[in-house]
C-alpha cells in the first residue's frame, strides 16, 4: 500500500516538475521576446522623436514659402478671393419662384454686400451696434442732424438681412468660403 501511494506521489511530482520546467522555459522565451519588442518600441519612439524634429525643421515657414513660390505659384490669399455662400447668384430652378432672385446680380469686381445688409447684424456684435453709440454724444442737436444723412445708406439696423432667393435669413459671418477653394 505504502509503496503504491509513494509511487503515485512521486509520479505526480515528476509530472508537475516537467510541466513547471516547460512553462518556465516558455516564459523565459516570451520574456526574451518581450525585451526585444520593448527595445524595438524604444528605438521606434526615438526615431519618431527625431523625425518629429526633422518634420518641424522641414516645415520652416520660410522654406515652405520658397517651395510654394517655386513649384506651385501660390501667393497670399487676398480679400477679393473671399466671399459668402449667400452672395452666389440664384440657381436656375429658383427663377420665377422669387421675383427678387432675377434682380440679384453677380458683383462686378468683388463680392460686396447686398443692399440692406449690414455688419451690424453680425451675430457676435450686440444688437445695438456698438460703435454707433458715439453717434449720439451728449447734447448737441447739431450732432443728430449731422448724423442723420450719414446713417441712412448704411443700414436699416433692425431688419435681418434675408436671402432674396431662398427667403431665409443670411448668416452674415458664419459662412465664409474661399472662392478659390471651390
Amino acid at each position, binding site marked *: 500500500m505504502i509503496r503504491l501511494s509513494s509511487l503515485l506521489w512521486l509520479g505526480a511530482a515528476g509530472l508537475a516538475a516537467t510541466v513547471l520546467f516547460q512553462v518556465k522555459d516558455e516564459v523565459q522565451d516570451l520574456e526574451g521576446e518581450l525585451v526585444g519588442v520593448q527595445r524595438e518600441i524604444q528605438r521606434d519612439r526615438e526615431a519618431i*522623436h527625431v523625425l518629429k524634429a526633422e518634420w518641424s525643421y522641414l516645415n520652416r515657414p520660410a522654406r515652405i514659402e520658397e517651395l510654394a513660390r517655386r513649384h506651385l505659384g501660390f501667393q497670399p490669399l487676398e480679400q477679393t478671393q473671399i466671399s459668402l455662400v449667400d452672395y452666389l447668384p440664384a440657381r436656375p430652378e429658383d427663377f420665377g419662384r422669387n421675383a427678387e432672385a432675377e434682380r440679384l446680380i453677380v458683383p462686378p469686381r468683388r463680392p460686396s454686400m447686398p443692399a440692406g445688409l449690414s*455688419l451690424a447684424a453680425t451675430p457676435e456684435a450686440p444688437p445695438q451696434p456698438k*460703435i454707433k453709440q458715439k453717434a449720439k454724444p451728449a447734447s448737441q442737436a447739431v450732432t443728430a442732424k*449731422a448724423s442723420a444723412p450719414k446713417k441712412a445708406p448704411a443700414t436699416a439696423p433692425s431688419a435681418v438681412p434675408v436671402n432674396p432667393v431662398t427667403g431665409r435669413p443670411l448668416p452674415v459671418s458664419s459662412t465664409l468660403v474661399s472662392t478659390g477653394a471651390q
Partner: protein
Amino acid sequence: MFRRQSAKPTIRPRTPCGHDLGPNRDWIVELEGTAKAALETGRTRLIVAGLVFACAFLVVGLRLVGIVLLQDVEEPRLAATPSGSEALETGRAEILDRNGQVLATTLPTSSLYANPRHITNPEEAAVRLATALPSEPKAKLLAKLSADRSFVWMKRGLTPRETAAVNRLGIPGLYFQREERRFYPHGALTSHIVGFTNIDNKGLAGMEQAFNPQLRGSNQPLRLSIDLRIQHILSEELLAGMQAFNGIGAAGLVMDARSGEVLAMVSLPSYDPNNPAAAPDAGRFNRATLGVYEMGSIFKIFTTAMALDSGVVTLEDGYDVTKPIRIARFTITDFHPHRGWLSIPEIFKESSNIGTVHMAVDSGTELQKRYLAGLGLLSAPKLELPEVGEPMIPAKWREINTMTISYGHGIAVTPVQAARAVAGVVNGGVLPEATLLKRPEGEPLGGTRVIGERTSDQMRWLMRLVVEQGTGGNAEAEGYLVGGKTGTADKLRPGGGYARDKRIASFAGAFPMNDPRYVVLAMVDEPKGTKASYGYATGGWVAAPVVGKTVQRMAPLLGIEPAPSAPVQNELLVPVNLRGRAVAAQ
C-alpha cells in the same frame, strides 16, 4: 495525557488518591508543580504554532487556487512596457507653438570621452582621432589625451557620422556616453522667445530659462501662445522694412487684443539658438521685451484716451495749435505745423504735438499718472520671459514731463507694454495680461478695466481715421480695417538731449477696427530716409507699411473675415460739431 514506559520500576507509584498501583504494572506519571506547568506551556505553544502554520498554509493554498484557477481582475492583460507614456522620455520636455509645431526638442546624441590612462600611445591616437573629427585641432586632442586624469571629454554631441568614424578607429580608452542635446528646428525665427540652453541642458535664456524646472521635471510639452506662421510673416516684413530704411534693429509684436496672448514677437537682429556662442551681443538683446524706448506719438493714443475718458475733452472740442508751446528752455512744435484750431480727431489724425500737450495739461499730472499706471506703462510688465525691461519714468513728474510724456517723450517703455496698453484701449477698455503661454480653451479672460467702453469705441474710430486719412495711410490692408497710430521719436544722444538724425519709427495698430482681434506693433530703430520715402524716415513711412503688409498676410490665416469697407466705415463715422471750423471727419 503523558505516558512514559520505564524498564526499571524502582519506585512504587501511587495514584493521586493513594491507591497502590502495584510494582510491575505500566505506570503513569502524574507530574505536579512546576514541571507540570512547563509541560502545559509547551503543549499550548505547540498547538498555537500548529494553528498558525495551518492558517498560513491555508492562505497559501487558497491564494494558489485563486491565482491558478480563478482569473485575477487586477492582473494586467499585457506586460508593462518600460514607460507608459506614448512619447519618448527625454531629460527635457519639448516646447511647442500654439499649433503644436516643435520649437525646441531634445535629441539623443553621443559624446566621446577618453580615459587617458588607458591610452598607450597618445600621439598616434590623437593623429588618428583627428581624421575622424576634422573639426577638432590635433594639438587640442593630444593635450587632452596625454592628461594625467582618468576622465576627459573629447567632444560632445557627435553627429552619427562622426560616431561611426570614431567607432571604426577602434582606439582603446575611448568611450561613448549617450547624451541629449537641445535642438531648435526654427533657429533664429523664435530665438528671442524660446531662448537656449547650455551643453548640460540648463536653460540660459528665454522660456528655456523661465521654465527650466518645469521642462526638466516632466515630459509634458510646454505650449506657447506663439503662432509660427505669424511669427514668420512678422519677422519677414520687419526685416524687409528694416533693410529698406537701413535700420540698425527692429522689433514687432502681434498680440491677441482680448486675451493678451502674444502670437508673434520678433526682435531683429536675431541669433541662432543652436549656436548661441556665435551670436553677437546685439543679436542676443531682446528689443521687444528688454529694450525700453521712447515710443513717440504712439503715446497720443493714451493721452487722447485719458482726456476723452475723464471727460476733459469730447470729440467735438478742439485746440488752437498755431503757436508752439514754450516752457522752460523747450519749445514744443509740430512736425507738420498747422494754423488755427484743430478738432480732437484732427489733432490725433495729424499727430499734432501742440494739441496733445494742451489736452494733457488740461487733464493734469495726477490724472496722467493714474491713467498711465492703469494702462501698465509705469511698471515692468508681467511676462514669463526673464528678459523683461523696467520702464524709464521721470523721478519727479513736473509739468514739463506731463507735456512731453503726452506725446511719448521723456518716458521709455518696452514694446510689449505699449502693445498691451493699445490692446486695453481698443478691446473695449479692459487691459489684458500679456502672456507667452497658450491660454486653455474656455478660460475666462481676466484683465482690469482701464477706460470706458464708449471711450474705447471713440479711440477705435480715431485710430481708424489715422489710417484712412491721416499719417498712417501706409498701414492700410484692404478689407481688414486697420487702425492705429504712427510714432516717430528722436533718440537720446549719449551726451544728453535728442539726436535729430537718429530716431525710432513705430506704428501701433489693431484690426479689424469695428471689433479688434489683434494688436500689431512694429518698430524700427534708426531708420534712414530713402528716395522712395522722399527722405522721410517717420513711423508713417517706415513702420506703418510693415504693419499693413503683416495684417494683409496674417488675417486670412487667422480666419478674419474681410469686411466690405463702406458699411463698416459708415458705422465708424462720428459726426463732429466744430462750430464752423474745419471738420476732420466729413
